């Protein structure tokens, strides 16, 4: 082959350019810590990175929904706990009223029952932040209004379920609506199923115990009706059942939370694997590339400047 000067120059240039590009790439990997920064450098990896980004984004929105649902469920759980305790106390009062020695005692018991009744109405109208806890979709104002003179409890809310997407294909209602709470079924003395509500039961109980209230001709040791006890029991069970429901949901979300946390860690590390450069490898490559570049420079520096002209006298 005939080696000409242009040939030498072009070949040296080409090699230097190629080696320089190699070393720049290695340099970039070391300084950014990323194996690639453009889709075209690694299409499959880049597509994977986009997928992982999307999944990480999804986790964030699930997290947001979970937090909101947990807030609702915690508040519901706490207020249902309170209700359950109050109803337990009422049951106790009812039993004591049965055995109360005097009407005076019963009147005392009735006063306490009245207070518990007020407290129950307060609990029913409890709020989660600025929203009514048990109002369904109707979260403005108080969902329940109690008229103690007639003993009627009116529910102004609806049966709306606040649905939250807390995980992949997992949707929960974050709330218990008032209609679930206020009404329940029980069996009366004759064994027929009746519908009652918690507060009216309390009202009945109080009415049963207040001395002025007993119907004409009733004996002095007028006990609460058996029916009332049944209703009280049913209300208690209802509240506890709902509490269990809420608790179960809460627990499920806690499980999901920890699972998502694991997924998050996994995705982060997958992201590192997909786009991150292996520092040791990158530095070695940089070293290699810069050595090759230096060698090429040295060779070109030796061969290019020499011609026969240097040796002519």
């Amino acid at each position, binding site marked *: *082959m*005939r*080696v*000409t*000067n*242009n*040939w030498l120059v*072009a*070949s040296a240039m*080409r090699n230097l350019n190629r080696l320089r590009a190699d070393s720049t790439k290695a340099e970039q990997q070391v300084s950014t810590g990323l194996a*690639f*920064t*453009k*889709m*075209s*450098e690694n*299409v499959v990896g*880049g*597509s994977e*990175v*986009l*997928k992982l*980004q*999307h999944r990480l*984004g*999804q986790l964030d*929105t699930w997290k*947001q*929904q979970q937090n*909101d649902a947990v807030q609702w469920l915690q508040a519901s759980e706490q207020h249902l706990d309170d209700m359950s305790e109050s109803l337990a106390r009422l049951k106790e009062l009812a039993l004591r009223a049965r055995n109360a020695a005097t009407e005076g005692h019963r009147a005392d018991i009735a006063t306490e029952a009245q207070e518990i009744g007020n407290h129950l109405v307060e609990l029913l109208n409890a709020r989660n932040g600025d*929203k009514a806890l048990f*109002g*369904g*979709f*109707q*979260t*403005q104002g108080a969902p329940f209004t109690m008229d103690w003179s007639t003993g009627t409890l009116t529910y102004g809310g609806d049966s*709306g379920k*606040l*649905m*939250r*997407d807390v995980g992949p294909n997992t949707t929960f209602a974050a709330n218990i609506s008032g209609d679930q709470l206020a009404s329940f079924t029980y069996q009366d003395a004759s064994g027929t199923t009746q519908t009652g509500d918690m507060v009216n039961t309390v009202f009945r109980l109080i009415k049963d115990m207040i001395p002025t209230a007993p119907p004409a001709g009733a004996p002095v040791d007028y006990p609460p009706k058996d029916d009332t006890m049944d209703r009280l029991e049913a209300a208690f069970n209802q509240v506890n059942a709902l509490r269990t429901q809420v608790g179960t949901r809460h627990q499920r979300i806690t499980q999901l939370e920890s699972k998502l946390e694991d997924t998050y860690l996994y995705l982060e590390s997958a992201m590192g694997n997909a*786009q991150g450069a292996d520092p040791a490898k990158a530095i070695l490559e940089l070293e290699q590339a810069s050595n090759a570049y230096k060698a090429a420079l040295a060779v070109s520096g030796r061969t290019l400047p020499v*011609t*026969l*002209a240097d040796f*002519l006298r």
Partner: protein
Amino acid sequence: MSTFSSLNTIRTGLFGSQRALETVGKNISNANVKGYHRQEVLFAAAEPSHVINGIGRGINSAQVVRYRDEFLDRQFRARSGWSGYYSTQANALSEIENLMGDLNDTGLKASLESFWNSWKTLALHPSDLSMKQGVVESAKTLIQEAKITFSGLQDLRTSLDGQLQQKVELVNQAAAEIASLNQSIQVAQAAGQEAHELTDRRDQLVDSLAQLAGASAITQPDGTTTVFINSMSGSSSGAFVLVQGNTAMTMTATQAMEADLDPSGITSTTQLVTNLTYNGTPTPWNVPSGEIGALLEARDQIAPDFMQRLDDFVRGIANQVNSLHGTSVDPSIPNIFTIDPAGTWMAIDVNAAVVADPSLIYSAGTLPTGGPPWPVTDNGDRARQIGALADSAFLTMGGQSLTGRDFLRGLSTEIGFAVKDATARAEAASLQVDQTEQQRASVSGVSIDEEMTKMIQYQQSYNAAARVMTAVDEMLDILINRVGTVGR
């Protein structure tokens, strides 16, 4: 043979060496000139004179040859046509990659995500005006980002068009110069002169035409060269003559409406693009190779294709959101997006009424019983449904159903593959060009060492000839001045 005739013989040797040294000088001074082909004086022993005993009459140095390999030239041109094509295409695609293929979680991808998230957040607080405001803002950002990307593509087309105009101008200039060189070379050859420098220049111009438009050339017996450009019109391909003899055709770049180039009939009166015509013929022709080929393809096919799909993307999302929150659900629910029914690219916006009054957004799952203002409720089922569109595959691309995010990922992946492919091809083509160029340099390039060696060789032969001439001179001196002087 006479003593005087040997003087003449030696003179041819002296002149020959001188001419060879001149050529060595020319080669050395042009060693780095692009397109220069090394020259060499070809010596031949002069025919003997039959009058004088058939003894030779020195040398003939009539011919100066120019080293070139026609096969390599042809190969170089074909390869540099493809190299020009792929490197231009890779550049255009890289621009698109910068617009649509970034790996960071920013731009269109991020704004799509925050659009869906704003609905999901609204679902948590369905009657909160600030959340509705958030939905409106994120919808505006989504449209804006899409339009920024779109106008980036539009700018790219405009710049491709500008480049095309320049390249066409270069083609015309080169063609005109080749035509005039053809004429000069023809005249010189007819007069029996060498026209190596003119031919070098002409070859260089043909090389540049090869890179610009994939041109090829054939040298005619009369010394002129005919330049062709391959063309494709639909499925039929052929070649048209760009330069023949001393005539050059002209390409003109005229401007046409975008609608003329876009078969799908989507119109945009604001976009002017250039249509190519050949020698005044308005039929659009296509150059399949060279930089012009790549520019035409990028401007008329690749960029519009991405613009179309970006439009599909925004239109798909707007339609889907409107189908859940718009007049088609209930006449009293306003559309979130206004969509130009004529189908103009990117004529989609956030409904001005909703922008002016975000409280018009209706988050509840149940249908409203009256018009706005909407009753306060915590029912966010509609907002939840719209937020859930994030994971719903309602867009289609290439017959596949995709979510918005996957659609964008598909575009990124596609452009990534295209850039990778074009870059690899451009690199391969340029490597081939380099190799051919090296082979050409091996044949036609100047080697200083070789020229130096020849310089020594011709210097020595010049010295020797001069020495012989001195000897003959001394012989003549003896003959003229010393003969016949006996007895003086």
